[in-house]
């Protein structure tokens, strides 16, 4: 397979591993190399590193808020500072951590999993990353703007985000940051789709794609249809703020509810944009550690497609209490989304059933993912019922629900992916013992943080308040939540240590530490430029498993002779 590479030609010899490892092209690791890189692996690493830093920033904001909420009264923050913190915390976790972490991991592993030398449009890929970084920097640095960062909530509802509601430049910087980040996401989505459709290795038919790749295709589809309306909506918001527009201003014939439609048209699919990549990762990991193929491959793909379709038609379940939308329609569609999501659980259970499950760190995170996400899914069905939503909307019940989905689900999926692929990306092995300690801390801390919030919500504690009365019985639940957040924070710090220690310890990981199934494990760790010098024949969704079995069968035959 000869592929023109800007003058140079990568030639790939096939069928048998080469006797010597391929020479890594030695180049200076200077900053210019990172700025000019178009290598999907380097861009992937940049994404993963940057999003992780944003995660630390967003986590720090959460910690500050939890410390403030540990006691009634205002101790460490002003109300305004608190409002800025939850606005930017939400924005950071959604736009700058979870979604782009999925895209970053996809950047690194989609080409590897399909046997491609790079992404289809490497320079566009680099542009995506730099736009994302610019967007993130704009949002986070807006804390230093005059008047501080946006304090209108990550949803930036009009009129609160309008010229009277939020006069300072905070909201403007927020709009611009989100616009940059969403432009970046759209570009990456196009890039991923074209890559997955056109750069697959021969024999890698669509129905042999690893499920992570399938879910990234479907995630990209959702990005393509959901981001343009938010881009339009935020542009209209900017026009209303500064250029005399009245799109959302009811006094001049605009509609406040229109903003919510545009926002949630994007906002709900975004939830699935943030979870599907990690469904994919978990579904790649569980079979490997259960030593079985995934149970119900086709069902899984169709379930993902159904989620994508349905998730575009449930947006107004965030607007049940506005009295302005057709509640039963959105309620029914939201209930239906539980069905394909449930199918995935049965895929995972069916895969583990009868297997030989090894609980190394990646699999532990997958188990945590399933346990947490299940509760988030169940409460999701509850809040999809408008009367129940009348009770719990905008209370801590909803906060608990979506943190079980996004932190208990996506974050655990991210950790699963990082522990699974760290040896591939760096060539080094993480300490399993430290990894397990990180898991225990984060799992316990997470559940302490968020389980009690269901009760807080049922007892009437509304979201987005810096202070609460002392006589309503919310204090002890808030204290437990704060304690949980601190434990989670310790877990994250220990994770950072885990990574640093692996770089210092330099224990070689080998090419295939987990006996993986997919093509990324057939190349070196880390993979060379343009990824492969050898590929096994691809006859199923687990080419490497087939290849190992063939070796074993041949070995057995020789023994019999």
């Amino acid at each position, binding site marked *: 397979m000869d592929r023109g590479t800007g003058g140079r030609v990568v030639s790939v010899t096939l069928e048998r591993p080469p006797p010597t490892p391929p020479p890594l092209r030695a180049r200076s690791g200077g900053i210019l190399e990172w700025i000019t890189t178009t290598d999907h692996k380097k861009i992937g690493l940049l994404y993963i590193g940057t999003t992780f830093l944003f995660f630390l920033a967003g986590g720090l904001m959460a910690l500050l808020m939890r410390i403030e909420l540990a006691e009634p009264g205002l101790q460490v923050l002003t109300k305004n500072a608190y409002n800025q913190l939850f606005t930017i915390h939400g924005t950071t976790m959604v736009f700058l951590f979870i979604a782009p972490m999925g895209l970053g991991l996809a950047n690194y592993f989609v080409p590897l999993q399909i046997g491609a030398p790079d992404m289809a449009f490497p320079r566009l890929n680099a542009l995506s990353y730099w736009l994302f970084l610019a967007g993130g920097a704009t949002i986070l640095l807006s804390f230093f703007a005059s008047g501080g960062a946006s304090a209108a909530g990550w949803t930036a509802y009009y009129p609160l985000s309008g010229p009277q509601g939020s006069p300072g430049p905070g909201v403007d910087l927020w709009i611009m940051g989100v616009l940059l980040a969403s432009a970046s996401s759209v570009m990456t989505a196009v890039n991923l789709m074209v890559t997955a459709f056109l750069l697959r290795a021969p024999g890698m038919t669509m129905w042999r794609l690893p499920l992570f790749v399938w879910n990234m295709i479907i995630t990209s589809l959702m990005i393509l249809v959901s981001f343009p309306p938010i881009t339009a909506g935020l542009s209209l918001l900017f026009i209303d703020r500064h250029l005399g527009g009245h799109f959302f201003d009811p006094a001049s014939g605009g509609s406040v509810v229109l903003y919510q439609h545009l926002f949630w048209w994007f906002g709900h699919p975004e939830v699935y944009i943030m979870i599907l990549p990690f469904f994919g990762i978990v579904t790649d990991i569980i079979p490997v550690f259960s030593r079985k193929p995934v149970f119900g491959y086709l069902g899984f793909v169709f379930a993902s497609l159904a989620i994508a379709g349905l998730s575009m*038609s449930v947006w107004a379940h965030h607007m049940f209490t506005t009295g302005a939308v057709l509640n039963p329609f959105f309620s029914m569609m939201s209930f239906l989304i539980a069905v394909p999501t449930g199918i995935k659980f049965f895929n995972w259970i069916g895969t583990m059933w009868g297997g030989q499950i090894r609980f190394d760190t990646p699999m532990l995170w997958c188990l945590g993912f399933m346990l947490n996400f299940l509760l988030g899914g169940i409460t999701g069905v509850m809040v999809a019922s408008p009367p129940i939503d009348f009770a719990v909307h905008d209370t801590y019940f909803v906060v608990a629900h979506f943190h079980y989905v996004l932190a208990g689900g996506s974050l655990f999926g991210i950790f699963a992916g990082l522990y699974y692929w760290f040896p591939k990306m760096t060539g080094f092995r993480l300490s399993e013992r430290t990894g397990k300690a990180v898991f225990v801390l984060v799992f316990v801390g997470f559940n302490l943080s968020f389980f009690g919030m269901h009760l807080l919500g049922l007892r009437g504690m509304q979201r987005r308040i810096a202070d609460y009365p002392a006589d309503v019985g919310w204090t002890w639940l808030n204290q437990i939540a704060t304690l949980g957040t601190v434990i989670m924070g310790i877990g994250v710090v220990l994770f950072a240590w885990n990574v640093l220690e692996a770089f210092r310890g330099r224990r070689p990981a080998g090419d295939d530490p987990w006996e993986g199934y997919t093509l990324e494990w057939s190349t070196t760790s880390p993979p060379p430029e343009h990824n492969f010098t050898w590929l096994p024949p691809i006859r199923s969704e687990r080419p490497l498993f087939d290849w190992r079995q063939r070796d074993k069968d041949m070995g057995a035959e020789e023994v019999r002779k």
Partner: protein
Amino acid sequence: MRTATKMFAFSAFFSLGVGTIYWLLSHERAGAVLLLFMFLAPLFIACYLLLRARRLRLPEDDAEGRPGEGAGVDIGRFHAASLWPFVTALGASLAVLGAVYGRWLALAGGTVMAAAVVGLMRESRG
């Protein structure tokens, strides 16, 4: 590519169905228009794939394909390194900051971006 075509066609007609039901039940315009566009956009891609890529027979889609088939097919250029994406993003971020902090910044950003796009194009040709 038939799977891709089907996927886009599915999204298009799913939205058409949902959009029709939604409009009939609610007569609410914002959502109906959004769903209409979610019908048209994937439909456009599906039609393009149907017309353009029907004859495209990729070795990727050959279930018996072996690694090595398709060798020598020019699938495009992979630029090893380029500074222009970085510069483009720099220009773009200056331009949007200009929308907040003043026209001069937008002008500077626009200029940088234009220069970077020219750079990208020259690189592609060279």
